[in-house]
């Protein structure tokens, strides 16, 4: 463990980090200066009891369970708070009677008011109190007086229940809420023996609340969802990766029989540390909700169950007929391997480059940006983010859109004063918790704000290691992505792109965009095409040579085909060939797409539609063939997080009988009599790896210039909107307790804008387009005049479907 002088790297590290050497229970241990004794002891294999000292919270030394003896100090010392000093001689419970007695005394105290209801406690079997009572406690209690009692569990939110009798006051939960999440909605209340955890007038509606259950060292905090449903020792645990966003959290999925019982954060210091968000933790009931049990085929206008061979035959025939005139929409939720299989299937089986993974608002610059700046690259990383002196956020709300990125930023702000600057319409709650400086931006005109960035912000970004993070929403602001990339070039800041969905980054890397082949290879580059063709075992000439259509273009093309067919019919002419004869759609929720009405019409109008889905949807409603596919627990795969880091995961249910998308595509290829494509995950990964990243030029063809800042008239405003972490997303369905912790839906405008339309604070504001109206209580917010913010996809506010609007559009305001 000590540095050797001939090891340059280690020597350098030692020069940077001062090391100290102490003795713990007779064993010498060398640790970085500042390491507390309890951690140093862990390195020697000595486990000191503890309740209040999880590694990622500031020490409080409150529970006193970890008292040890330090030579030269008169009293036992809390090993969670005292740093190991050079030459310090420490005796833990293993070698010190004093320490052992002090620990046993604390354990006895902790149990006098504890109900000892382990047999009916959710924590029983995985309970630090239970375990340490066995290792450290007395077999019999001397306490014979009345125990303090409290009414059994109280809801501190719809999701979290608190049993105060079991609580040992370690304050892990309150400290987590305050230090890590920045949501001090739970606190210590009362004092002395009557001290307890409590809430104020509002519930514990924090996006990170579930972590408190996991770090609670007793059974005081339980979830409404899991309470009394399983015993830990009956569960099978599998490491998995969260499918909800691009943060890339490692999770532990616990299942019993064939049902997921709970999911917890898995410790991954490089990514999610020990935390995850409540969506990732609780939003899993959808996995078993309303599943398609077998293939469906359309007959006489109705879907009916069909055998796999029949359905595959029909699908292959339909797709085969459309070869060269098909399009593939993959959504953003596929694993990297599945996405790769679609990218490959489109270019080979369907001979088309019409492929788009984006089921959301997109912009003209985005494909070029992703191809040239993102695809096949890696970083910036969480570590770089944590170390950055300054971070600029562009059209990105980390707490809502990538919560673990938010936690890392908050940690950096708290620990080393990282300066966060956000280009946004107003300082959101999340930004406030990051003490972020606001660069006000009119939605859609972020490029202007970036161009006119204050000099001091540029100076911040010029500090080595600074980071610029652009959210996927930046795509809809013309010129913003280019401006951000230019800013990164000029300042030397790292540039990161953060999509919302877990599968988007993997889909970019594997070529689920028009004009983009796997590994960031430009389709138009002959060398790139050759590399891919060789890996796929096809002739380079067989691959499409010009960039295909993106989702809106596919929709438009289908509409144009219909118009052409209609006019040809009216003229009595023979209809010319369609541009799009077939659609292959995977995991797309139509309402996620702006102008979803047009998409729905295209799904209806396209001559042949194959849908690979897990459950009935608006897409399956129109499909000619529906092929059911696996959900994440039923397959192995990889999500690529926003960093570009692969997050592989194994199958949770080894006995699952469903097929992953890639396997269904391989079956289709079989029915199309094509050469065998890799169909299992190891083979797919091997092929992806053998291709690797593109080493050649990545041109970024001219980006759109910034558009003029919109100038709304009286009674109008520019729409600002993003998705809240907890909203009406379909992957949150089936978890009412989680839904109960959603933020209330409000519309935000400035005081002047509210006054302009005569709506007082708290009254309902109506926001309208020609298509519809959303009416919400207004919350007067410090923000530029002439902007209205709405939640994008909340129960009372569905911007894409009700207003059919995207951020930056002008909308009408009024009093409901």
């Amino acid at each position, binding site marked *: 463990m000590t540095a050797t002088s001939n090891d340059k790297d280690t020597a350098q590290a030692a020069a940077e980090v001062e090391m100290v050497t102490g003795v713990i229970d007779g064993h010498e241990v060398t640790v970085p200066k500042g390491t507390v004794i309890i951690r140093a002891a862990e390195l020697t294999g000595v486990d000191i009891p503890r309740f209040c000292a999880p590694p990622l919270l500031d020490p409080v*030394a409150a529970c*006193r369970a970890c008292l040890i003896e330090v030579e030269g100090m008169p009293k036992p010392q809390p090993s969670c708070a005292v740093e190991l000093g050079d030459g310090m001689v420490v005796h833990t419970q293993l070698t010190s009677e004093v320490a052992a007695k002090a620990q046993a005394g604390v354990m006895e105290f902790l149990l*006098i*008011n504890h109900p000892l209801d382990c047999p009916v406690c959710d924590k029983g079997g995985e309970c630090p109190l239970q375990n340490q009572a066995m290792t450290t406690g007395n077999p019999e209690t001397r306490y014979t*007086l009345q125990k303090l009692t409290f009414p059994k569990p109280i809801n501190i939110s719809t999701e979290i229940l608190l049993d105060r009798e079991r609580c040992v*006051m370690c304050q892990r939960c309150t400290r987590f809420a305050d230090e890590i999440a920045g949501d001090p909605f739970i606190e210590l209340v009362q004092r*002395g023996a009557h001290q307890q955890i409590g809430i104020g007038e509002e519930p514990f509606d924090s996006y990170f609340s579930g972590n408190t259950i996991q770090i609670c060292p007793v059974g005081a905090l339980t979830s409404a969802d899991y309470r009394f449903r399983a015993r830990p020792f009956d569960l099978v645990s599998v490491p998995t990766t969260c499918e909800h966003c691009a943060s890339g959290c490692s999770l532990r999925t616990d299942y019993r029989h064939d049902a997921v019982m709970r999911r917890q954060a898995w410790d991954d210091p490089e990514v999610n540390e020990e935390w995850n968000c409540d969506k990732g933790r609780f939003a899993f009931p959808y996995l078993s909700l309303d599943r398609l049990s077998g293939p469906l085929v359309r007959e006489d206008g109705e879907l009916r169950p069909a055998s796999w061979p029949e359905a595959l035959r029909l699908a292959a025939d339909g797709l085969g007929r459309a070869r060269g005139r098909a399009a593939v929409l993959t959504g953003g939720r596929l694993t990297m391997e599945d996405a790769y299989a679609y990218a490959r299937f489109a270019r080979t089986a369907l001979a088309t480059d019409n492929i788009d993974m984006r089921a959301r608002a997109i912009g003209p610059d985005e494909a070029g940006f992703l191809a040239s700046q993102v695809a096949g690259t890696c970083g910036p990383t969480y570590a770089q983010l944590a170390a950055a002196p300054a971070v600029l956020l562009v059209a990105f709300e980390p707490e809502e859109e990538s919560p673990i990125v938010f936690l890392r930023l908050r940690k950096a702000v708290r620990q080393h004063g990282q300066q966060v600057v956000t280009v946004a319409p107003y300082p959101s709650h999340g930004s406030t918790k990051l003490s972020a400086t606001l660069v006000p931006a009119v939605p859609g005109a972020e490029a202007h704000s970036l161009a006119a960035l204050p000099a001091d912000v540029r100076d911040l970004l010029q500090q080595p290691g600074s980071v610029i993070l652009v959210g996927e929403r930046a795509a809809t602001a013309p010129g913003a992505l280019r401006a951000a990339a230019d800013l990164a070039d000029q300042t030397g800041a790292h540039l990161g792109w953060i999509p919302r969905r877990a599968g988007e980054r993997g889909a970019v890397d594997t070529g689920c965009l028009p004009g983009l082949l796997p590994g960031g290879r430009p389709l138009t580059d002959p060398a790139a095409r050759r590399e891919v063709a060789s890996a796929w075992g096809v002739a380079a000439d067989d691959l499409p040579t010009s960039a295909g259509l993106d989702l809106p273009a596919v929709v438009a093309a289908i509409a144009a085909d219909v118009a052409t067919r209609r006019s040809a019919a009216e003229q009595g002419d023979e209809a010319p060939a369609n541009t799009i004869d077939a659609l292959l759609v995977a995991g797309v929720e139509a309402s996620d797409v702006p102008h979803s009405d047009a998409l729905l019409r295209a799904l209806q109008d396209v001559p042949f539609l194959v849908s690979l889905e897990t459950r009935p949807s608006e897409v399956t409603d129109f499909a000619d063939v529906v092929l059911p596919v696996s959900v994440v627990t039923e397959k192995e795969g990889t999500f690529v997080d926003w960093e570009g880091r692969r997050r592989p995961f194994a199958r949770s249910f080894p006995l699952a009988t469903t097929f992953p998308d890639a396997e269904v595509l391989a079956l289709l290829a079989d029915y199309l009599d094509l050469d065998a494509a890799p169909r299992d995950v190891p083979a797919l990964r091997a092929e992806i790896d053998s291709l690797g990243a593109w080493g050649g030029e990545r041109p970024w063809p001219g980006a759109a210039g910034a558009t003029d800042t919109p100038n709304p008239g009286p009674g109008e405003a520019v729409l600002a909107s993003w998705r809240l972490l907890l909203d009406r997303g379909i992957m949150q369905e089936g978890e009412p307790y989680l839904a109960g912790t959603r933020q209330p839906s409000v519309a935000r405008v400035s005081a002047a804008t509210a006054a302009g339309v005569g709506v007082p604070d708290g009254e309902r504001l109506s926001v309208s387009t020609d298509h519809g109206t959303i009416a919400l209580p207004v919350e007067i917010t410090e923000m530029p005049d002439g902007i209205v913010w709405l939640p994008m996809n909340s129960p009372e506010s569905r911007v894409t479907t009700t207003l059919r609007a995207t951020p930056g559009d002008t909308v009408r305001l009024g009093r409901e």
Partner: protein
Amino acid sequence: MPLTPVITAHWDDPHSYTLDSYRRHGGYTALAQALKTDPDEVIATVKESGLRGRGGAGFPTGLKWSFVPQNDGRPHYLVVNGDESEPGACKDIPIMLANPHALIEGIVITCWAIRASHAFIYIRGEVPMPIRRMQKSVAEARAAGYLGKNILGSGLDLEIVVHGGAGAYICGEETALLDSLEGRRGQPRLKPPFPAVAGLYASPTVVNNVETISSVPYIIKNGVSWYREMGTEKSPGFKVWAVSGHVTRPGIYEAPLGITMGELLDYAGGIRDGRDVKFWLPGGSSVPMLTADHLDTPMTYEAIVDAGSMLGTGTPMLFDETTSVVKAITRWLEFYRHESCGKCTPCREGTYWITGTLEKFQEGRGSQDEIEDLVEICNQIMGRSFCALGDAAATPYAPSLALFRSEWEAALTQPADEAFDPAATMIIPSMSGVGA
């Protein structure tokens, strides 16, 4: 040893609390003197004087001041601890009522020394009179130019905020006091960092007791050698003793450290009705009890420790032989149970357990095992709790058992009120005496 009125010397002036009276008795001359002296020299003077904190711990005051980093670019704060809540302690509030300007002058001098421009006087909330009196006096001092901008042309700017608490004994602990003053639960903070480095608002802060700061002007004015003429080498100077309990004339007696309890008791007219002292506590309920055997022990920090107790706040409580030890100890433990902040396990759970058990003894329902168990349970708190409150709660029982074991054994069956007639312990008539 003679009495030596210093802080209390002019209290018989009917308006002793006014600026006028204070100045007539030499007030604010020390300030003018100090402001002409280099701040480091002021610190050195206080260091040399040997003044020790009067809040209970007796930490050398000048040394505490010298821990404040200089030229660190951060604001510095002085916080005066006027949260006098220790059972038995009743000397800071009289000082604030009778001689508020000594405290203010002391604050200005201290702030000059530690380079602070903001001071706070934290006064417990349950006593409105010193709050309003200190506020008025601060206003007087401000109007006279002793506070505000550029005090006496020295360049020192200083504002004092008088702050009322809300009922929590633990706020007498300096870091709990700082959390309370920041608008939080008054629970002690982890040290290090110590307040001198990261105190109020995480800035360098000195926390001193009212009596300590009130002593400063007299030391500056009269000099170190004058101060050291009183007291001993390790416990120099004068002290405001508040003598209470079964004494003939309870009250405030100012005398040098080193005076004996016997001497103080003589000045106070002895135990009431010529009775004998049964036990006494030199400085609050948190120090071990002593008996008549210790009446000749000099009241210095060091000698009282040698006798098995602590000087604490220097406010002796004396009880005569009518007093039930069981009842006295139980009541103090009820206090600690009530005031335990809840932060650490030994104090929170231990005070709850001990007190519940003691209450059984008080009712005559103790058990032989528990007599010994209680010693062990106290030892499970002593030195293991987060702050001194736990130690304080663990202190009273063991010495009382050592000195009065028979009373505890009697309490296995006999309620305290049967063993000792409560009416006999009282110093007031036991009946209302109002014509029925």
